[in-house]
């Protein structure tokens, strides 16, 4: 019994601890992290952060953990942060492609002697990988052996704002160390609000800043450097220690033009006289060249002088591996702004430590021609001749005739431990300038086109002359051909008057040629073939139902028209793609009403169903007639030549016999029998299909309606000549 009680007690205590402390067990093995945690341990495996996750106590991220940040995912750490990756088992913190999350924020004061320790972690594709928010405080910070690569945010890669300011002498300081990290292919800088401070002692050493693109504007300034911050004379007990770093191929990129403007390595401002920046590799062995990538007193006399001499002529071997020097195959200097116009035979790369090129892929990306944006990539073959830390590449692929403006990329490089080494790009600056040049030309042409279009509009709407403005378009270009299909609905004597779509609809096919007369006026000629049919049985009128007539006629019409376009016919802009048109026209129509009697189709006109052959005073009606119509179109212009749209036209016929039913009295049966009609049975039937008593009535009664029809459908039109 005692043993059971002990077990129950242990279980109860365990549950109580779990509930009260809200400890990490919930998070372990959980894919999506959300909400607040007192403590959190993120173990090896995939985790997702889609929203704000706050850890009030210690946050531990273990080796092998992969955390995907989706926008607006952010991880706020208010206590200790321990990211314990290992050389062989990194932690990966990355943004979901196309929906990149923010990153990790260190926030608040933690007086429990807690630390921030981040090692062997990869921060990739994030908006702001690491932010030490204003008023943060920990006993120390160590960011070592990490990879900050391809982060997309343009604010900062690491941003360190000030801890709480204390006028009283505070003997505690924060050791802030950034050591042996690789910063590569990022879009932003490492920023310290105060590099020199009473509260933070900054040490930045052994890092590689390689191929970062700092976004700004064309003017080079303090903040457009891959590492920058303030250095003041007061409240500045601790000088920053920034040594043994390598700064290679870091550039300021103009936000607007997306072109490389300037080398951008280090910038400083504040009231200090001098900031130490010695023993760093700064991308060159030439002092004047180095000076270009440092924003200091040499550029602006209000800012401190950066004391960068002596500088290193090559990066330290302990820095993350990278290629720091590119030379031509004859070992001559290769300007980073070189415009590649002819195939290279090869090149020489120098790295600070051993780089594994065994899986390297050399690609040439180039424009296919001299003006368009058509781009092509080709993978090149090469031979390698290693010579210590220098490697000679001889390109064996034949690029003769293929070389256009482009750049080489050498990717899939590794260091001796298999870790990431930044890609090497050759000729990229000139390529991006060329891309910009082509963009500018395209933009200029677009603006010119819009200007031309605007000019053609001539917005003096109060003048009737402007609506019919003469156009300068050549004769051939004024033609537009249109094919159309849809349905035709008869609305005459034999029809349902109360519901248009309660009538028969028959297929319509047609072709139309349009000719632009003026800016808003065009003439058209249509040929349409369609059928009309209907039956009194479709009517809601009892008198019509009792009449019981039906018919079907093939129609062939030739219709000239004149149309008013609400927008300029020849104007093509993206904002005015929808173009309505109204018009009127004349119809020349051939028709031939038919109907079925006892399984046989009869032409009704020769039967004289209105007594035309039975009464000598009457004549048979003509099967060719005139008419007039009103049409309406809405055209959607796909491009300058092609359009699609919907059309609707209402036609009134001058003949009342499209359905064979005109204003004739019902003929007597006796007169039909006496006539010379070939098919008397059919004539008798069609003259009065229900055989009802119709004495004194007209065949088109009860309403005596004239004949009309409605054509509706869709069309495709194209300008014949461009």
């Amino acid at each position, binding site marked *: 019994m005692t043993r059971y009680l002990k077990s129950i007690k242990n279980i109860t205590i365990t549950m109580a601890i779990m509930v009260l402390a809200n400890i990490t067990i919930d998070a372990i093995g959980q894919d999506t992290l959300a909400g607040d945690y007192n403590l959190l341990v993120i173990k090896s495996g995939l985790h997702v952060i889609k929203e704000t996750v706050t850890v009030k106590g210690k946050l531990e991220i273990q080796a092998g953990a992969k955390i995907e940040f989706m926008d607006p995912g952010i991880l706020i750490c208010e206590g200790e942060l321990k990211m314990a990756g290992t050389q062989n088992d990194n932690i990966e913190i990355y943004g979901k492609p196309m929906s990149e999350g923010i990153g990790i924020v260190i926030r608040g004061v933690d007086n429990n002697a807690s630390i921030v320790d981040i090692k062997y972690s990869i921060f990739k594709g994030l908006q702001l990988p690491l932010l030490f928010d204003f008023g943060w405080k920990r006993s120390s910070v160590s960011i070592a052996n990490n990879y900050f690569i391809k982060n997309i945010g343009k604010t900062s890669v690491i941003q360190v704002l000030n801890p709480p300011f204390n006028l009283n002498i505070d003997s505690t300081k924060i050791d802030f160390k950034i050591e042996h990290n690789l910063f590569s292919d990022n879009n932003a800088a490492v920023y310290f609000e105060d590099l020199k401070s009473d509260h933070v002692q900054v040490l930045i050493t052994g890092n590689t800043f390689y191929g970062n693109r700092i976004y700004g504007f064309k003017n080079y300034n303090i903040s457009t450097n891959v590492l920058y911050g303030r250095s003041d004379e007061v409240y500045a007990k601790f000088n920053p220690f920034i040594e043994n770093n390598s700064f290679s191929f870091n550039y300021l990129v103009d936000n607007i033009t997306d072109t490389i403007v300037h080398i951008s390595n280090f910038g400083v401002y504040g009231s200090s006289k001098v900031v130490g920046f010695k023993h760093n590799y700064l991308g060159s062995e030439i002092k004047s060249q180095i000076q270009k990538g440092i924003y200091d007193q040499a550029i602006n006399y209000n800012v401190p002088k950066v004391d960068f001499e002596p500088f290193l002529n090559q990066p330290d071997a302990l820095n993350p591996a990278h290629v720091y020097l590119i030379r031509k195959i004859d070992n001559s200097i290769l300007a980073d702004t070189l415009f590649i116009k002819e195939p290279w035979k090869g090149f020489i790369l120098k790295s600070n430590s051993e780089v594994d090129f065994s899986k390297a892929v050399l690609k040439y990306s180039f424009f296919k021609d001299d003006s368009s944006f058509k781009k092509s990539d080709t993978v090149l073959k090469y031979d390698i001749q290693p010579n210590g830390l220098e490697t000679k590449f001889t390109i064996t692929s034949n690029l003769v005739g293929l070389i256009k403006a482009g750049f080489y990329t050498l990717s899939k490089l590794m260091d001796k431990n298999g870790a990431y080494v930044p890609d090497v790009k050759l000729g990229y600056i000139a390529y991006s300038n060329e891309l910009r040049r082509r963009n500018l030309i395209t933009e200029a042409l677009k603006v010119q086109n819009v200007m031309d279009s605007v000019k053609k509009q001539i917005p003096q709407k109060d003048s009737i002359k402007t609506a019919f403005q003469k156009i300068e378009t050549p004769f051939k270009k004024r033609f537009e051909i249109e094919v159309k*299909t*849809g349905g035709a609905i008869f609305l005459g004597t034999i029809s349902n008057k109360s519901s248009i779509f309660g009538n028969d*609809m*028959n297929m319509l096919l047609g072709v139309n040629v349009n000719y632009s007369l003026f800016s808003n006026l065009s003439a058209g000629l249509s040929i349409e073939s369609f059928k009309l049919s209907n039956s009194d049985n479709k009517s809601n009128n009892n008198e019509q139902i009792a009449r019981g007539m039906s018919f*079907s006629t093939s129609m062939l019409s030739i219709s000239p028209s004149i149309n008013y376009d609400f927008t300029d016919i020849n104007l093509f802009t993206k904002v005015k793609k929808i173009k309505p048109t109204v018009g009127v026209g004349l119809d020349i129509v051939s028709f031939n009403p038919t109907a*079925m009697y006892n*399984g046989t189709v009869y032409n009704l006109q020769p039967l004289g169903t209105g007594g035309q052959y039975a009464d000598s005073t009457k004549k048979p009606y003509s099967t060719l007639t005139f008419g007039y119509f009103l049409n309406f179109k809405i055209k959607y212009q796909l491009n300058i030549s092609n359009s699609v749209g919907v059309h609707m036209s209402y036609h009134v016929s001058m003949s009342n016999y499209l359905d064979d039913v005109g204003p004739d009295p019902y003929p007597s049966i006796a007169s039909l029998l006496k006539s010379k009609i070939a098919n008397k049975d059919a004539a008798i*039937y069609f003259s009065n299909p229900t*055989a009802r008593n119709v004495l004194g009535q007209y065949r088109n009664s009860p309403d005596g309606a004239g004949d009309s029809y409605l054509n509706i459908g869709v069309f495709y039109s194209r300008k014949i000549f461009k």
Partner: protein
Amino acid sequence: MKSKFIIYSLFFLIAISAILSCAKTDTIPALQFQKQLLAGTGKYQNTLHSWQLDSTKINGANVLLTNTQKNFKKTFLFDGAYFDSDNNLGKWEITTINKLKQTIIYQSLNRQDSVVYDIVSINAAQLNLSIKLSNGQTAIYSFKISN
């Protein structure tokens, strides 16, 4: 790109729906048509047809009709009912083309009889019925429409 796809789809759908909605021609079978000529379609004011006796031939020879005979009318209702001017009631049916079967209850004789006529011809105005008489002669009755 998306808007172009929508435009094309809409265009295509309208074209297809226009074609599919086109009227189809309905052909009335000959048997049905003959029934309609005889008794109407059943639509408004076309629910019955009355046929008035016009002439009679026995073995090809015209028979002189009395006024009463000339006023004799057969009325066929579209639903198969029948009555005539002699106050006889009955039914009619055409199960085979040109064969009109009538079942008539003769009010005066209080007798029911069945008779099958051959339809010699029928149109919207004229009906010719033929029957073999009990004496072996062939009678042809011509009726005209009398609605």
